[in-house]
């Protein structure tokens, strides 16, 4: 309103002085410039798949004049039914992030110095293919190792696997975030295959062992939808949720019962619960008799465990363990879930599911069709540490951040490291060549995903927004490299490669042609049926029994000057360890601490054992491997003796909002490491 500015000067208090101000002062000081309004040109929607995590939700991008200005879920898409998780809602910020990489970068100074030379795409690809051919002709058995993000099958992964296969064998690895993955190691040893689907909303009782599934589930939206179904699903009564975890997490807060347990001892608790079920004869005898093997050996191996030993180690009162065993057997169907933690925990929890007998058609666990995804087999860093490759190609994953202990060594020993990434993250910083790739909204999608209601879905969608900079689709990069190395067997460009693959999938009748909206097709074989693919066709306890014999389960922890236990978790905003580079996600990172924007350490006031430590003070958290800085957040609800730190912060790069913010607890240890605190 023009009036107010002019009149202010007319009656202004020190009109003599300010009226002599030059024009710029008037403009700059008082009136923010009203820049020209954005042209309200044509407006429309683009439909695509969200690529920020393996879930594969369907997103609808609102575009005005070619800019993406709004984002929401596709209402009838089977995976997310219109909803989105915070990362999906913030994907516009990744697309228009100011610190995105725009041209290929060749390292100039020493590694990690951050001095780059901007080179053209041809130069970059030519240099890389020369390096690969020279590595191939070299003496080493493993010339190239390709590392990608653990996720469901997608076309870009397929192109990278094609490139890796054309150069050598078993040089294709995946790196995931174990805390946000299903216990696929247990599935493999007990069912013979990883392809096991879990239908959370069918459970009447859900017991989670150390798995903060509301915040770090493999498909975050599915977790939120399933929770709503469990609590207020139509035509069913309210399910009960028990959370067994060292930290009073968001899931523990929403659960009906929180069982605090010492970090790393969830598996032990599962075993003693199994023993109780067997002792009370309340396990599903039909399933054990008909569809399982090695039960008797497993039962005998449990004899060594005693209730009060386990109760002392896990710090869970005996009475509560007994009550939990009764509850497990009374509320049917009960499900026990965990994430991809230690192997013993995974198998113990899954053995519990076998005892509860809800595996198979219609049960809570069932088989799953569709293409095998790219899952980390957990051996990548050991095998590569033993024999580091000539050349390491890293595709959109940040090993130096996610598991610094193993990968720092591998990267150091690898002569040439090339990274495909949209941002300059830790791995890109210490690599020799960085190839900027499209962000998910600029990429074409063709990928398999499993939805909560058990139907597997093929998502196939064109790019939502035209690429902003001279970046390339990761699939394009890998195809170009394969073409340069392995001659002409590969199609001319990436789009025809995608079309070719779609034709092949259609030929294998993998999906119904007609079903699905614009961008997805229902898989023909729904996720159902018995998941057992073992040689005996049955559920096998043997692997678990063998491990039980080896480990002396009851050894108490020795103190050694580090009295406290470290507990790590990934808040939903930084799920899979990614997301710190988006400011809107920083705001929802710690719902309990509200606008943290830094690494906070949750603990009980007595735990701190630092005289006079007050809430909000800066502290050092130190383990045998190093120390990091954090802000103490004292809460009487926290479990004494446990220090909980969020994973996802503490980047050395990754854009202006993540760089130098907070610290990365993965550098000083993992779940259950002993730490001590002192004031900063």
């Amino acid at each position, binding site marked *: 309103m023009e009036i107010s500015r*002019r009149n202010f*000067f007319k009656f202004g208090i020190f009109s003599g002085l300010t009226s*002599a101000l030059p024009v710029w002062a*008037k403009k700059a000081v008082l009136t923010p410039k*009203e820049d020209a*309004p954005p*042209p*309200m*040109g*044509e407006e429309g929607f683009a439909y695509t798949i969200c690529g920020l995590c393996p879930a594969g939700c369907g997103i609808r991008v609102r575009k005005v004049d070619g800019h993406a200005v709004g984002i929401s879920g596709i209402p009838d898409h089977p995976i997310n039914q219109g909803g989105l998780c915070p990362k999906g809602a913030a994907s516009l910020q990744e697309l228009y992030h100011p610190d995105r990489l725009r041209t290929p970068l060749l390292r100039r100074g020493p590694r990690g110095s951050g001095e780059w030379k901007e080179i053209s795409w041809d130069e970059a690809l030519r240099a890389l293919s020369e390096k690969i051919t020279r590595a191939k002709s070299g003496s080493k058995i493993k010339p190239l190792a390709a590392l990608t993000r653990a996720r469901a099958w997608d076309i870009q992964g397929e192109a990278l696997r094609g490139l890796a296969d054309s150069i050598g064998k078993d040089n294709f690895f995946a790196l995931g975030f174990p805390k946000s993955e299903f216990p696929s190691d247990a599935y493999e040893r007990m069912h013979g295959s990883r392809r096991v689907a879990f239908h959370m909303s069918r459970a009447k009782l859900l017991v989670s062992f150390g798995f903060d599934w509301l915040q770090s589930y493999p498909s975050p939206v599915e977790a939120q939808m399933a929770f709503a179904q469990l609590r207020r699903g139509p035509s069913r009564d309210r399910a009960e949720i028990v959370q067994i975890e060292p930290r009073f997490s968001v899931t523990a807060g929403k659960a009906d019962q929180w069982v605090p347990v010492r970090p790393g001892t969830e598996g032990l608790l599962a075993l003693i619960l199994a023993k109780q079920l067997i002792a009370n004869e309340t396990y599903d005898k039909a399933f054990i008799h008909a569809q399982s093997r090695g039960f008797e050996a497993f039962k005998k191996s449990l004899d060594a465990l005693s209730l009060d030993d386990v109760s002392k180690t896990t710090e869970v009162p005996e009475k509560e363990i007994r009550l939990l065993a009764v509850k497990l057997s009374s509320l049917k169907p009960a499900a026990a879930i965990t994430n991809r933690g230690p192997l013993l925990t995974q198998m113990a929890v899954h053995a519990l599911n076998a005892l509860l007998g809800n595996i198979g058609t219609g049960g809570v666990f069932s088989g799953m069709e569709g293409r095998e995804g790219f899952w980390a087999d957990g051996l990548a860093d050991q095998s590569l540490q033993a024999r580091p490759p000539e050349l390491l190609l890293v595709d959109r994953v940040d090993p130096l951040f996610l598991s610094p202990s193993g990968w720092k060594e591998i990267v150091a020993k690898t002569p040439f490291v090339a990274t495909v990434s949209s941002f300059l993250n830790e791995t890109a910083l210490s690599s020799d060549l960085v190839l900027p790739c499209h962000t998910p909204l600029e990429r074409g999608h063709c990928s398999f995903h499993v939805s909560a209601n058990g139907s597997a879905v093929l998502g196939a969608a064109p790019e939502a927004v035209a690429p902003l900079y001279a970046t390339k689709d990761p699939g394009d990069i890998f195809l170009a490299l394969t073409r340069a190395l392995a001659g002409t067997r590969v199609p001319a460009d990436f789009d025809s490669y995608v079309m070719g693959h779609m034709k092949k999938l259609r030929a294998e009748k993998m999906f119904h042609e007609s079903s699905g909206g614009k961008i997805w097709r229902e898989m023909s074989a729904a996720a159902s049926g018995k998941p057992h693919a073992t040689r005996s066709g049955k559920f096998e306890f043997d692997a678990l029994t063998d491990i039980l014999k080896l480990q002396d389960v009851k050894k108490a922890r020795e103190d050694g000057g580090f009295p406290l236990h470290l507990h790590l978790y990934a808040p939903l905003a930084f799920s899979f360890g990614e997301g710190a580079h988006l400011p809107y996600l920083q705001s929802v990172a710690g719902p309990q601490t509200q606008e943290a924007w830094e690494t906070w350490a949750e603990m009980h006031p007595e735990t701190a054992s630092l005289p006079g430590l007050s809430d909000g003070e800066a502290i050092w958290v130190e383990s045998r491997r190093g120390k990091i800085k954090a802000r103490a957040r004292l809460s009487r609800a926290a479990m004494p003796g446990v220090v909980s730190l969020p994973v996802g912060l503490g980047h050395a790069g990754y854009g202006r909002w993540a760089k130098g913010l907070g610290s990365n607890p993965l550098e000083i240890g993992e779940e259950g490491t002993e730490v001590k605190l002192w004031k900063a």
Partner: protein
Amino acid sequence: MKDLAAAVLSLAFIGLVWLLLAGYQSGSKKQPVAYNHKKHIALGLECAGCHTGIADGKARGGLPTVEVCAACHTSDDENPRAKAVRDYVSANKPIPWKKVYNVPTHVYFSHRRHVGLAKLDCALCHGDMSKVEAPVTRQAVTISMARCMGCHHRMKVTNDCLACHK
């Protein structure tokens, strides 16, 4: 001593007056092509003919694109005064019209709602352009909040602040 005070006072006064005038939306804009509304309207052209997309709210009250002019001003039209527009048409370069009516960024105004749906006559807000011969340099009728609210009040349409302030 006295003249110093007088100097300071007069300086302050002049500064004040200049500031008041500087605050005005002064200055007229110079159009690249001397377009004569009167002549074209006399030929029977409608507003929406050149200002395309008004009724369905496409462009924000779009200024005519060069294709619209090209429809009539083809190369074989010799009228000397229309030479300027012919250059643009032949070069197929968009004509850089200077916008005179700028909706402020904090105001929501939809031509579709007013022209497309409410079927209001363009002259209601933009004044009777059929009498304007000279190229447009200033708003024929200055559009102000009071004017919009007055019309809304007369037409018994909502005067809720949120209707226009976004």
